[in-house]
């Protein structure tokens, strides 16, 4: 048990010293918001948007449902720090200690052949971007958000925080005020990017909040796959992550958003992710959530166009002291839309894993078809799993099917594998891998491998 802990600590438990922290003070004021905007040389409309969002944030209450957020002290968080001013275009330009951290997490190998480009965010500034030449020629824009705001102001003002508006809830308002960095991905009409694009970032300093914004626009008939994964080291003070992902999938386009999130045990992960899907277009969400103290994550697909479709594949793993409150939301606004949700959750050692889903069919949406499948695996007696699927059906022509199961690893299956020479631990790992296979098979190999490794480490303590 201690061996596993050591390994985990080595991977995630170290932190680079952060000399830049003196620059900003804690808590959130108008002054800080103005400072953020000024340091990025933002156009006035963006500054105004930040200030309006700040007002909303101050006046909105905390959510009155979901896990307990009372220990989150919003005044103790640093909302902005600039660790590095330049953006490296080549790996060799990236500072050494940062490289070491990324090294441990396997970034360079991932970058080499399989991926098109890597954006890595250190604290709130993107320092490294590398876009492969061929896609640059096709007009694909894969840029960090701060740069994109300067280079493509029309695109930004057209799309920024339109899918996820500041007024949605307190944390989107916060995001609107202090967002910094993130990925801007624009795929032009008809372009097909077959290799996945990836951004990797992590939180570092104590009490550092992270508010990156990912804005993705996939034009008509285009196709792309984007992967986001993150990690953060252990710290005593609560870390807050209130990021935002907005995805626009235009007519006949197809987009997959994969993310493997593994936050430190004291982090609060309160992301808002939303996709707007047009006629005959398709969005696929593939995700794995690990770590963090509290996660509330409900990717939302708004099926706006005729025949649009959404696929939500998710895995949540809640270990001791963790709450994974995750799920999926699909809103069917148009006819002949369809959605498929497959959620797998694993809980262990008192961890709480919740699935909160919403499927909403509006009155005008005819012939909608929905299928939801949730399975919960409770690895021991202390674990906890909740499945709360809400179905709001306002149209008579809809067909909705929902199925869910909760239970433990079958003793018979365990016995069988052990009778073939596997140790109990190996047998459990094998069964758990089988349980999550529908999700891992949709992730690129290195992510699948990493995910399996994370689960092994999480389980390694032994069951019972």
């Amino acid at each position, binding site marked *: 048990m201690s061996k596993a802990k050591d390994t985990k600590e080595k991977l995630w438990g170290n932190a680079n010293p952060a000399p830049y922290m003196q620059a900003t003070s804690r808590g959130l004021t108008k002054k800080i918001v103005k400072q953020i905007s000024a340091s990025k040389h933002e156009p006035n409309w963006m500054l105004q948007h930040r200030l309006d969002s700040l007002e909303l944030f101050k006046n909105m209450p905390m959510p009155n449902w979901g896990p307990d957020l009372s220990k989150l002290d919003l005044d103790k968080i640093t909302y902005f720090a600039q660790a590095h001013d330049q953006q490296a275009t080549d790996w060799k330009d990236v500072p050494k200690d940062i490289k070491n951290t990324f090294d441990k997490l396997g970034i360079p190998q991932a970058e080499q052949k399989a991926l098109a480009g890597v954006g890595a965010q250190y604290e709130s500034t993107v320092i490294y971007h590398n876009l492969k030449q061929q896609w640059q020629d096709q007009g694909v824009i894969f840029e960090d958000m701060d740069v994109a705001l300067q280079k493509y102001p029309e695109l930004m003002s057209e799309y920024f925080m339109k899918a996820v508006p500041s007024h949605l809830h307190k944390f989107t308002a916060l995001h609107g005020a202090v967002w910094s960095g993130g990925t801007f991905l624009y795929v032009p009409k008809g372009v097909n990017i077959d290799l996945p694009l990836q951004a990797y970032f992590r939180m570092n300093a104590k009490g550092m909040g992270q508010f990156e914004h990912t804005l993705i626009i996939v034009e008509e008939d285009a196709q792309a796959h984007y992967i986001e994964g993150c990690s953060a080291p252990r710290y005593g003070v609560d870390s807050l992550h209130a990021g935002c992902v907005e995805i626009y999938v235009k007519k006949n386009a197809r987009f997959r958003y994969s993310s493997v999130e593994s936050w430190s045990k004291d982090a609060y992960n309160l992301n808002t992710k939303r996709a707007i899907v047009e006629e005959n277009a398709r969005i696929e969400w593939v995700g794995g959530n690990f770590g963090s103290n509290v996660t509330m994550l409900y990717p939302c697909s708004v099926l706006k166009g005729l025949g649009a479709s959404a696929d939500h594949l998710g895995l949540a793993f809640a270990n001791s002291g963790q709450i994974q409150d995750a799920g999926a939301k699909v809103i069917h606004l148009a006819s002949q839309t369809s959605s498929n949700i497959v959620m797998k959750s694993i809980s262990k050692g008192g961890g709480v894993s919740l699935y909160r889903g919403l499927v909403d069919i509006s009155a005008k949406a005819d012939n909608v078809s929905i299928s939801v499948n949730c399975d919960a695996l409770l690895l021991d007696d202390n674990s*906890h799993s909740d499945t709360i699927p809400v179905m709001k059906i306002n149209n008579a022509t809809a*067909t909705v099917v929902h199925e869910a199961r*909760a239970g433990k690893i079958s003793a018979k299956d365990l016995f069988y594998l052990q009778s073939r020479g596997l140790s109990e631990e190996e047998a459990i790992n094998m069964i758990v891998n089988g349980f999550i296979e529908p999700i891992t098979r949709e992730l690129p190999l290195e992510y699948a491998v990493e995910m399996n490794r994370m689960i092994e480490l999480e389980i390694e303590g032994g069951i019972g």
Partner: protein
Amino acid sequence: MIANKKIIYIEPLKNKKRNIVVDEDSVVIEVIDEDSKDFDKFKTNISIADNINVEYVYLFNKNITSPIIEDREIKLGINTRLKNYYCYLGSNFTVTLKQQLDSHSELDHNVVFLADQKNNLNIQAKNNFLYPKAKGVFTIQGIVKDQARAGYYSSIIIDQIAKDANAKLEMSAINLSKEAKISLVPALKVATNQVNASHSARISNLSKKQLFYLNSRGIDKIQAQELLIQSVFQSFLDKLPNEEIKNKIEALLKNKLS
């Protein structure tokens, strides 16, 4: 059906709060209709003793314009078998139903509902498995038509000490009109892994192809809807342990459909 069982008729509602105690093998029949007082809120506590076999038929058919709220709590004793047959036919109402299973108890909960016209039906059921080796099977079937609204929230909650609990929830709703609205939430909250729990929910309708098929057998649209409603109710009625109440519900249904 259990032969030669004692039949207990629960009196029509007179007080805002009632305690019903069932302590012997029996068939209990409770009806809330025009013979019951017009309370806007009332509470019913039912306690089923240990080691007995009870079949409980509950017909809710109150038709008043103002909404009614019933707060209903049922406790099952140890090693006791309860079969519920709940039929909701009334107008606007909200029911909060809480059922608690003790160890080794078995609950077979059958519900059928029909929400029509402009009625609003809201059922929130919490089924608590607090002790080991309890078993619960929940079968909920409903039909919504005209401009009605139906919301059914049924949660199965399995406590950490409720080892070897066995729970199965199946919800199915049929939507027969464009303006009707259905909301279903089959929730499952599990705090121990020594459990066998599942739930499913299905919402469907009468498609154009299905309607055409029935038409091609001489059955028109209205009849097709009635056929569907009757079929759903038939499977429920066939399980009832008492002829009298069965006939009463059949007559009420016929009335509603004409």
